[in-house]
């Protein structure tokens, strides 16, 4: 039952013009978070019903399905919930440097954030390890204000 593939036929280039889209993205939570980062503070939104603290804060709690807007500050230390060590790109080509990118749950909040963990050998990284944020010297209210995380 060997299948014999037919003769090759040509291909036509077509495009999905995603650049034609004007995406509307809710941004209050992002603004509250990044503005706070200017002062080295991390702020999220708490659901007044179930106490879940989201970062960045959405306008509604998806568990309780209610509108939420209570701004809360959380710590810049946290726990690594999971991590991956990037070693190659998606097609298998090795990266020049191994990089630990971790899912970090900051203290006092329920959201997991991805951050790079530095100053440790990737072989020593563990789920559950404690990390702290290392801020840049002059934060500007951007995600890049936290340069990286380091083990405590």
């Amino acid at each position, binding site marked *: 039952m060997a299948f014999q593939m037919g003769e090759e036929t040509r291909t*036509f280039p*077509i495009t*999905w*013009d*995603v650049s*034609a*889209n*004007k*995406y*509307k*993205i*809710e941004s209050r939570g992002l603004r509250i978070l990044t503005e706070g980062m200017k002062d080295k503070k991390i702020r999220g939104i708490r659901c007044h019903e179930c106490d879940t603290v989201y970062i960045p804060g959405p*306008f*509604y709690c*998806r*568990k309780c*399905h209610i*509108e939420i807007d209570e701004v809360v500050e959380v710590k810049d230390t946290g726990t690594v919930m999971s991590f991956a060590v990037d070693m190659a790109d998606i097609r298998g080509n090795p990266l020049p440097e191994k990089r630990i990118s971790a899912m970090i749950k900051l203290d006092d909040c329920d959201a997991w954030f991805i951050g790079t963990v530095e100053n440790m050998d990737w072989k020593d990284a563990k789920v559950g390890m404690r990390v702290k944020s290392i801020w840049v010297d002059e934060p500007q209210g951007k995600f890049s204000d936290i340069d990286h995380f380091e083990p405590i």
Partner: protein
Amino acid sequence: MERKVAIVSHVQTKHSSDIGMPRERMLFNLVKELHNKVGITRHDVDSYVLCSNDFEAGRTISTVFEDTPVGAYMKDETKVEMDGIMALIYATMRILSGQFDTALVVANSLGGSQFRPFLIMEYQLDPTFDRQVGLINELNAGAFQARSYMDKYGLDEWFLDAISARLLRNGAINPYALRSKDDATPEYVASSEYYYEPLRKLHCYPFSDGACAVLLACGEKAKELCEKPVWIKGFSNSLETCRLGERELYTSPSTKQAAEKAYKAAGISDPANEIDVAEISAKFAHQEPIICESLGLFPEGSAEDVAKNDLAEITGKMPISPSGGGICTYVFSAAGLINVAQCCQQLTGEAGDAQVPNAKIALAHGQDGFCAQHNSVVILSSEEG
């Protein structure tokens, strides 16, 4: 059908060319409004059927961020990627199966402000031929269809103007409509510019942002949840070939096939007399008579007579699209579902100035594709029967 399915409630946005908020917010607000109207929470809904389009959303798997705003977190959820009326049909089947008692159908699009509907349509063309040749677009395909109807029945362009004028006037009494004009006349429509002859600007649909949600329930549950359930009596859909050059564009065999099955299920033998009001998804003025005639609501080729004798007016013998139809609002992915919502308003006596007196049986229609390639029909009734 052993089990009966009814519409408990429905909500829609005030449609707009730019609704001015993100999709998630639009959906959250919409569903909360429905919850408040019925007095339920998300936990009272068993099943969610969503309807949106990946290319309109500009996102692979358009529903990934739509589930939680509509309250589907940890719930049964699926997505129909067609016109919204098909999501309603699927939800009805799910309830009929006996596995679910309630289902929420939500369809949405930001085709007015976020994306270009003509491009969504271009992506629908056979990518190995029509899309490569690059000659066909939605407007000129529509023009061919209009010409085909005019040639077949020897009509001039006046009936197009008259249909658009009627719909624009209807739009003026529909608080949800995007485009409207309370004193529109055929002459006013005829003064808009040509796109592709015979189609003028006001013969074509406007790009709309909007969303619609419809809550369905099995019979007993529906009676518990609301005073006036609207009963789903029959539905079907059918499809034609995508080859424009192989279709008789002046008629709509797929609409006819869908209607036959829907009428049979609903026990309708004389649609023109038994149906009190119809909401038709016509993206262009000429599609309304083509679809209505295939539905058996008017004789073939009667568009001019219908217009001259005001038969399709709200006060006429066979009111068509009291909401203003596709000429006033066309929300890609949601248009058919909005038609269902409009029919419900008619059947529960909530249609305000657009109310057709004593409306008991309504027909909602939805379409997809070039020149209404795919058509769906739902028959609704205010009586359980």
